[in-house]
């Protein structure tokens, strides 16, 4: 079994929205039709996106940090959005675990959007069908592309390589290793949706220094006096190791 997924490293993401724009660019130009926008340069712009980068402030000023949080369909292993779809337009591909919407079958009832706890499905207000991330299904299997480019557009665009793409069911894949070794976690585990996409947490590299390590307790230069002469005449360990 294969389950393709993204792993997003919150430690690295700088919130530049490159993934958002490249996703939009790729997916609005594909065979499945455009992702509609309204008033893109007007007062109240709105549009359909597969991927959004949100920003959260953790803590209170001045003890706070900014977390940029890219969010797209998590391609859940147990997707609650799929069984509710009355038409079968929403489905999960058995071969690679990608959750897709068949735009030719969708009736735009929005039930699936209500049944997704993550708010990643968006109705296209012009085509009146439900849209969501496809993991760039039209890129990743395209043999006309060089192997290195058979990845989702967002992954290729990320300037900091905060986005990894691979099969989380293969224990040796880059994503599985990252999840296992860098503390990858799933969003809202409480609903049992088993998201395939994982997030890597903020991580700080710290060395642990004990107080006595900051001062050399045996530094002879600290003491301006004759070295004590012990009762023993021959060399001590101190005589040979300290200077």
């Amino acid at each position, binding site marked *: 079994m294969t389950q393709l997924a993204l792993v997003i490293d919150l430690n690295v993401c700088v919130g530049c929205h490159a993934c*958002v724009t490249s996703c939009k660019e790729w997916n609005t130009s594909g065979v499945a039709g455009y992702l509609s926008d309204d*008033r893109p340069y007007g*007062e*109240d*712009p*709105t*549009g*359909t*996106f597969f991927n*959004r*980068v*949100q*920003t*959260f*402030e*953790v*803590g*209170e000023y001045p003890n*706070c940090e900014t*977390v940029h949080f890219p*969010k797209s369909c998590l391609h859940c292993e147990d997707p*609650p959005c*799929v*069984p*509710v*779809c*009355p*038409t*079968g*337009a929403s489905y999960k591909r058995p071969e690679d675990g990608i959750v897709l919407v068949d735009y030719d*079958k*969708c*009736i*735009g*009832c*929005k*039930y699936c*959007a*209500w*049944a*997704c*706890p*993550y*708010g990643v*499905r*968006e*109705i296209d*207000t012009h085509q*009146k*069908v439900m849209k969501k991330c496809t993991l760039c299904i039209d890129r990743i299997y395209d043999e006309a592309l060089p192997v290195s480019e058979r990845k989702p557009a967002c992954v290729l665009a990320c300037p900091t390589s905060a986005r990894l793409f691979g099969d989380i069911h293969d224990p040796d894949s880059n994503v599985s290793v990252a999840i296992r070794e860098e503390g990858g*976690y*799933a*969003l*809202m*585990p*409480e*609903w049992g949706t088993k998201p395939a996409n994982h*997030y890597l*947490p*903020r991580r700080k590299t710290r060395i642990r220094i004990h107080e006595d390590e900051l001062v050399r307790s045996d530094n002879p230069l600290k003491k301006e006096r004759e070295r004590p002469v012990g009762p023993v005449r021959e060399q001590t360990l101190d005589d040979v190791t300290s200077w």
Partner: protein
Amino acid sequence: MIVLTTLIGVGQGLFLALYAGEWYMRIHSGLRDSGEFYVTASVLSVGLLIAGLVASFFHLGRPERAWRSAAQWKTSWLSREVIVLPIVVALVALYGAAHYVASSPDIAPWLVQRYWTLWIGGVATAAVLTLFLCTAMIYACIRFLQEWATPLTVFNYTLLGSASGFTLATALAQHYAAEMTLFFGVWAVVVTLVALATRVASLIRNTRSRRKSTLQTATGVKHQHITQRSQGLMGGSFNTREFFHSASPAWLQRLMWLFLLLVFPVPILLIVAGLSVKMTGILTAAFVAQYIGLLAERWFFFAQAQHPQNLYYQTMG
């Protein structure tokens, strides 16, 4: 959705009342020439169900593909509803037709006074109850919509629909078949009271429930103070339009009291008054009040649900 669920609720309730009334009359005094009443009420019930169906088309993005929605009945309650609703319409229509034939001896004398209507009605009752279950489960099956994910949702949909149907039946009976008015009136009050109990129970449950999803589980960051600074858009999106309502908590609270008044005590008082002075007008007013109350009730039901996705859409910027 509000119009759909309340309209088909009345339609289904009206049929249940009708069928219960038929049993009552057969047991107590035999069917008299109230054929006109059954036929009128069945036609009305079918009309309400179809009106609900039409209302449901309006909210679809692609109504021309609506037929596809019957495909996933194995997993989707919405699909099941789409299948059961036309079955209910057909059975209720058949029930009305059977009464029409039975009450017009010159069409088919051999049909008169048989128990056909009871058989058809029995099957239709099962279909109506299934439809209540399907409609309510559409909402109750989404486990993270905590306000909806309870068996009380099923009871509320069934009982509130039945209550409005019995109230309407009372008004109709006063006009067409006065001997049944008291039966319908009493049961309308009883069903309304039971519905009051389950609806209040769900209101209490919802004020007490604790939210399982928080910003911490939504982002996976363990900190008591997480504030959203941007949601990745400046002018709104589907996610900010579909799942939020603009009503203030105070307004919601007022709406709650409004529906609690209009759905329960007002129609009960009007039914009692209407029964004592035997006036169709007052009984009709009872139904109208209850129906308006139900519209408010459904609005409140939808507004009360707090979708976990809202955690991701709190601040623009």
